[in-house]
């Protein structure tokens, strides 16, 4: 079943057209990795999927809701779409536990004891149960990002969006975060991941989308895209990033 459908998506910032004509579909339980050079529009594409960016043209349908339609309650749709940011964006004035329980309690008016129990389960899942009462400022980058993942999961989303989740981390922290994401993929979460981690894309991605200059240049299974790229731009990008490995 198609859970994300993007048709002729356009996005401009002023006179700069960042997304030119994006068409994509994501099936339930698929893991899509989006790669491409910086400025290619991949983060903007991701941010259009929960309308953190206003959409300039075209259509984005999430789980049956056309979010370009102003009549659609975007807050409702966002409850189903978790997002993890490059800079974590944890709430620094709240403890780890409060970061996770805030949205379920305020948005769904969930019961406190129940929500906290669920939050502790999520912290177990990301391996940070003992940090429940710490503040974000007391955590390492990798720990922050795992809390951010738990926070997004607390709303029981159907889809998870990851915007370069490991780009701001020290190299030795990357593994822990990718491991959590891999586990999530294994459990059947639908995921769209903007990433520079080619290893992750290869191993965990069902499909890889290569973007450049506001277009999707090429999309394929990881084996095909990395092993047998069709376009010159894909080849030249891959030769640059894969050389470093």
């Amino acid at each position, binding site marked *: 079943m198609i859970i994300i459908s993007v048709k002729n998506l356009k996005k401009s910032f002023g006179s700069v057209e960042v997304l030119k004509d994006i068409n994509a579909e994501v099936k339930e339980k698929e893991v899509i990795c989006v790669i491409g050079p910086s400025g290619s529009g991949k983060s903007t594409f991701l941010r259009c999927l929960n309308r*953190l960016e206003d959409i300039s043209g075209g259509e984005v349908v999430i789980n049956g809701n056309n979010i370009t339609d102003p009549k659609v309650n975007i*807050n409702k749709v*966002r409850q189903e779409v978790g997002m993890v940011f490059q800079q974590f964006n944890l709430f620094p004035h709240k403890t780890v536990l409060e970061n996770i329980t805030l949205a379920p309690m*305020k*948005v769904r008016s969930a019961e406190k004891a129940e929500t906290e129990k669920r939050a502790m389960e999520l912290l177990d899942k990301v391996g940070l149960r003992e940090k429940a009462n710490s503040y974000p400022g007391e955590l390492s980058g990798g720990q922050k990002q795992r809390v951010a993942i738990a926070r997004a999961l607390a*709303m029981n989303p159907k889809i998870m969006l990851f915007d370069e989740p490991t780009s701001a981390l020290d190299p030795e922290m990357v593994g822990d975060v990718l491991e959590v994401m891999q586990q999530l993929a294994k459990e059947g979460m639908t995921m769209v991941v903007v990433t520079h981690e080619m290893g992750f894309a290869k191993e965990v991605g069902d499909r890889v989308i290569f973007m450049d200059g506001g277009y999707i240049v090429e999309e394929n299974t990881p084996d095909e895209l990395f092993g047998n790229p069709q376009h010159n731009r894909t080849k030249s990008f891959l030769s640059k990033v894969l050389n470093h490995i």
Partner: protein
Amino acid sequence: MPSFSKKGEDTPMDVISSAIPLLLKGLEVTIYIFIIAIILGFLLGLLVALFRLAPIKILNWIAIVYVNAIRGTPFIVQLFFIYFGINSLHFVSLNSTTAGIITVAINAGAYFSEIIRAGIQSIDKGQTEAARSLGLTGSQAMRHVILPQAFRRMLPTITNQSIISLKDTSLLSIIGIADLTQQGQIQASATFEAFKIWLTVGVIYFIIIYLISALASFVERRFELR
């Protein structure tokens, strides 16, 4: 002439100690006006800051005109406008205390609104995005995520403005409010001991403001940004 205790004359302490009960009565009025005005001013400032940041042009303009009108005119003119000016229209009749509270509140509100606006804007945009991506509405994100962080950052500036407003209340004596300054004036002219009386009045203001600063730094420490 220094009046060290000759028989039949007051000692310096006598002058002060007989003035103090009346000065403290004045202080009560000052504190009463200050507390009500500062709370109203803060709420007004919050509202105007939200107007200023709202994506609605007309609200932006209301906020801009208000802040500039207050910033661009002296406190005394604002006070006279509200007490004499508005009363002269005869559609309401404000007594001096009400007019005084309104003036201090409106004056402080303009400065508070700028402090609050700057505080809100100083919070990283990622905080709003994270909150909204979880399904919180704009006002929920403001209330639970942005404002609590912004207020901690604003606290020193808010304290500063509150102290300025407290000192501004001394100007209310001009319209006949029996505040600390007014009581000082009465005592000074009754006793002909201007030096001692005004020194005492100054010390009382100083102590109150010192206590406010101490309270503010206590609160700041408790809510230290983590």
